[in-house]
């Protein structure tokens, strides 16, 4: 293997070290399944390598990884329909009063994941990218292919959804 190949491999592994946590989180928030999230993360980097071997050029590695991971999440959902928290509750699933904190100040990492997973998909992606991965609106627009205005609106509405869900669940817990 010549020097050029070694350089490409090194850059590829460097990208893995840099973005594996972000891609894993994104997959975990989207699937709510740790094992599935790890599998999709691995598949994401495999797809990227295949793309490079085919002779293609990647200009923005981070955006490309999110796009690939997003497509794989969609494939996963098609195979297995995701179950929302509302559906689970309607089916008799009791989250228990200890699963969500009484106030928003007491929320932890797992609580954030559950809350984010409870909002509609079109708001979930932008909320994850904006507040968990700390991306700019411009970066999110680049990844999703939407306009910056649309992204800003979705972020705002996503936050409102989370706030509404939290308030609703808090009232349920209080009433128990």
């Amino acid at each position, binding site marked *: *293997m*010549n*020097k*050029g*190949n070694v*350089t*490409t*491999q090194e*850059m*590829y*592994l460097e*990208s*893995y070290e840099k973005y*594996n*946590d972000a891609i*894993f*989180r994104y997959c*975990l*928030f989207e699937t709510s399944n740790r094992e599935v999230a*790890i599998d999709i*993360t*691995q598949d994401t*980097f*495999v797809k990227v*390598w*295949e793309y*490079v*071997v085919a*002779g*293609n*050029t*990647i*200009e923005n*590695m981070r955006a490309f990884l999110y796009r690939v991971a997003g497509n794989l999440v969609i494939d996963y959902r098609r195979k297995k329909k995701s179950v929302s928290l509302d559906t689970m509750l309607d089916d008799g699933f009791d989250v228990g009063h200890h699963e969500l904190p009484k106030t*928003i*100040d007491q*929320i*932890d*990492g*797992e*609580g*954030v*994941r559950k809350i*984010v997973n409870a909002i509609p998909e079109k708001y979930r992606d932008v*909320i*994850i990218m904006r*507040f*968990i*991965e*700390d991306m700019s609106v411009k970066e999110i627009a680049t990844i999703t292919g939407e306009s910056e205005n649309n992204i800003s609106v979705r972020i705002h509405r996503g*936050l409102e959804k*989370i*706030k509404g869900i*939290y308030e609703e669940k808090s009232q349920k817990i209080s009433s128990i």
Partner: protein
Amino acid sequence: MKTILEEQLKKGRESVMTSAEKNLVKTNLVNFMSANPLPISLNKTSFERSIPSPFINSFSLLPLFRISASALGVVLILGGSLTYASGTALPGNILYPVKVHVREPVARTLAVKPEAKIAFDKERVKTRISELKTLQTKEDADTVSIKEAEDAFSTSLDSFEKSLDEGENSGRVALVEEAQKDILEKLQTETIETTPVLMKASSMMAIPSQETTTKESGAETTKKNPRIEKLLKRAHENVSKRAFLKERARILEATPQPKESDTLSPTPTDTNEVSVTTPKAETLKVPELPTRLSDSKEKEAVLTNHQGE
């Protein structure tokens, strides 16, 4: 509350893979990379975007390249056509220099082995002889045409002699002798067919200096082409002389060395008369160096008799 919520959402960053999970995925990826390596042609990293040179604008050179390629194509086509068409050109024709100075030298360079060089040069000399024959029969042959033929003939003959030397040095004696014989036969044939007077003069070793008579369809025409005759004579002399010297060397080599008591008179260094001592102490006189085809036949007869004795 919104700001608090945004801050709390950042706690989602706590969700990460464990070190064991990261290493497992990395190991799987490295194995996958080994099983699917990058192609060798992909020397440059695919993550990098190629940056065009600020000094050379390839688009501005494109029209120039197209013009150059077109011009080159036209030159190649015209040059190739001219070279091909020059194959049958005769002295005096506008394509004759192309034939002599381009077509034949290029073809000659393709002959690498000594036998190939001999074969090529032999055919070239034959072609020159045929051209001279044609020129000799043309009444309107001008001085320029004769000069062209003369130069081409001299060049071809020199090249032929060099090839013969090279062939002899590399041990291809039979091939050299055969080539010499072919040229002599060609000279004889062409001369007999076209110029009886020249043949007669050649056999007598006295080439007419100013006139040559050509007999065609029963009618005799007189032409003045001494330069052509001189060229043919030179070819005949050169090839015959070469054959004679070779034959003489072979005789000397086959003859036993003379004893000290034997008398050698005159000395073998005399080119006109070479005496060798046979086992019977008899002296054999090798005839004078022939410059005519008939003489070479006489020489062969003498040599045959000598070997018989």
